[in-house]
């Protein structure tokens, strides 16, 4: 376990390192004292409902009040924000919102564009390229409510890609998607890792873990296990997190 390693003195700074991360909702702890260093590559964040998986991502990004510390590439988020992309849960927004797929993806380019007037052509083209990378080039102008659930999920992925970051925090991008979308998303993720980027992904389907992920972080309100899949993704860790359910190889 990498627990307790000093966060600042690491030779190659971890894409994300959290120390003593604790989150309370209405006084009840949702996440208690998580200390963890993410390794480069593709990491699945696993655990039952309410285990604090999404909360971990949000707390690290400062989106929910938390105790403890989170450092990205060895630095506070504020210093390296442009290197970190976030993909929220699909259900967190209203998809009937009057916006096209391209509008949504272009939101990622807001910090790069001047703040007034129309989006510069260069930023628009970057957003188009990101849409093409998830196979939605033809649907750029379509209103997002007229896309299928899987296509909506790919729009969110394209928006994260358009941030051109080095670390991607993704909240269940594979939840309830069709086979084409799952294939597309996994291919994109592996492509990112080949480019030397890192992905931390909240994930539900235990059957995909061994084939596709390099590392796991297993949570159940606290850290249960973490490390390379071969070492940390064990029956006993899964049983400890999921409360004795026969876990491995089955959907959670």
């Amino acid at each position: 376990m990498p627990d307790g390693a000093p966060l600042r003195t690491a030779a190659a700074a971890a894409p994300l390192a959290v120390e003593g991360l604790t989150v309370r909702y209405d006084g009840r702890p949702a996440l208690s004292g998580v200390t963890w260093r993410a390794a480069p590559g593709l990491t699945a964040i696993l655990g039952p409902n309410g285990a604090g998986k999404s909360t971990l991502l949000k707390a690290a990004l400062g989106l929910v009040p938390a105790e403890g510390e989170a450092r990205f590439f060895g630095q506070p988020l504020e210093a390296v924000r442009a290197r970190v992309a976030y993909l929220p849960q699909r259900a967190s927004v209203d998809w009937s919102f009057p916006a096209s797929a391209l509008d949504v993806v272009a939101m990622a380019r807001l910090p790069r564009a001047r703040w007034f007037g129309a989006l510069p052509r260069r930023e628009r083209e970057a957003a188009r390229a990101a849409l093409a990378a998830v196979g939605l080039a033809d649907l750029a102008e379509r209103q997002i409510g007229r896309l299928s659930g899987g296509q909506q999920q790919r729009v969110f992925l394209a928006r994260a890609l358009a941030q051109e970051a080095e670390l991607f925090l993704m909240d269940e991008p594979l939840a309830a998607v069709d086979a084409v979308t799952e294939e597309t998303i996994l291919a994109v993720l592996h492509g990112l890792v080949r480019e030397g980027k890192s992905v931390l992904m909240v994930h539900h389907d235990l059957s995909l873990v061994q084939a596709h992920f390099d590392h796991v972080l297993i949570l159940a309100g606290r850290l249960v296990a973490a490390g390379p899949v071969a070492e940390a993704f064990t029956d006993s860790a899964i049983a400890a997190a999921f409360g004795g359910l026969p876990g491995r190889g089955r959907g959670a």
Partner: protein
Amino acid sequence: MSEFLQLDLPPLLAAMLAGGTCGLLGSFLVLRRESLLGDALSHAVLPGIVLGFALTGLRSAWPMLAGALVAALLATAAIAWVRRAARLDPGAATGLVFTGFFAAGLVLLEVTGARNADLDVDCVLFGQLETLVWLEARGPAALLDPAALAGLPRQLGLLAGVALAALLFVLGFWRTLRLIAFDPEFARSLGLRVGGWELALNLMIAAAAVAAFESVGSILTVALLVCPAVAMRLLTDRYGAQIWGGAALGAGLGAAGVLLAGPLPAALGAGVALNAAGLIGTLGGLAVAAALLLRRA
């Protein structure tokens, strides 16, 4: 012609400016699913308006605007505090705070003596569109005559100023406002100060509410914030059409209400003229109903 300029033009302009501004900003409330906040802000500004008036004794718009913005800030803070302290859902907290603020405003209206000047409950609720007149307009030449223009009702100045500010605000922050309405959490992950943006938007709405309030009253202000935006929400799924359509529909409702208040009852055989504010509110409701039917069709 001069009768039109003297009696009809001022209320027409006031209703169109109030409707256009509220229709423009209302879309952001509806898109953020916070329509009730429009209700809250347009009521919560009342104690600020009364105090601004009572403390300075001025009939000028600026103390009232300043008081209203302070009241809107306090109300926004109070809503956030009640939500946290009492663990209420946002709707309940909003309802609690704005009824409290509005009641306080009515009490202040009585105890400060503002009531005896020209703020009374009727005017607060229904406005005073019909009392906006431009007596200096003795002919079309008045439109170009600075001396005559200076005699325009002062409410028009405030309405025009706030309308211009709202227009620049929306145009300048077009993409940012869309991002914050669609996905505030992602906006925060980009490093945007979403709370500050929402506060700026709320203050802009409070300013629109206070400018509209004096001429069309608080009830109609709520209708103009919500009805055009909701109607456009049913009719379009393009952002530009939503925002500009809301503004145009708001201005159109204002114009229609003022222009039809006299002739419409007559055409229907009634012997009385309608209150323009009431008619605008009714038309707003009808616009939403029509949008619903169009969408179904």
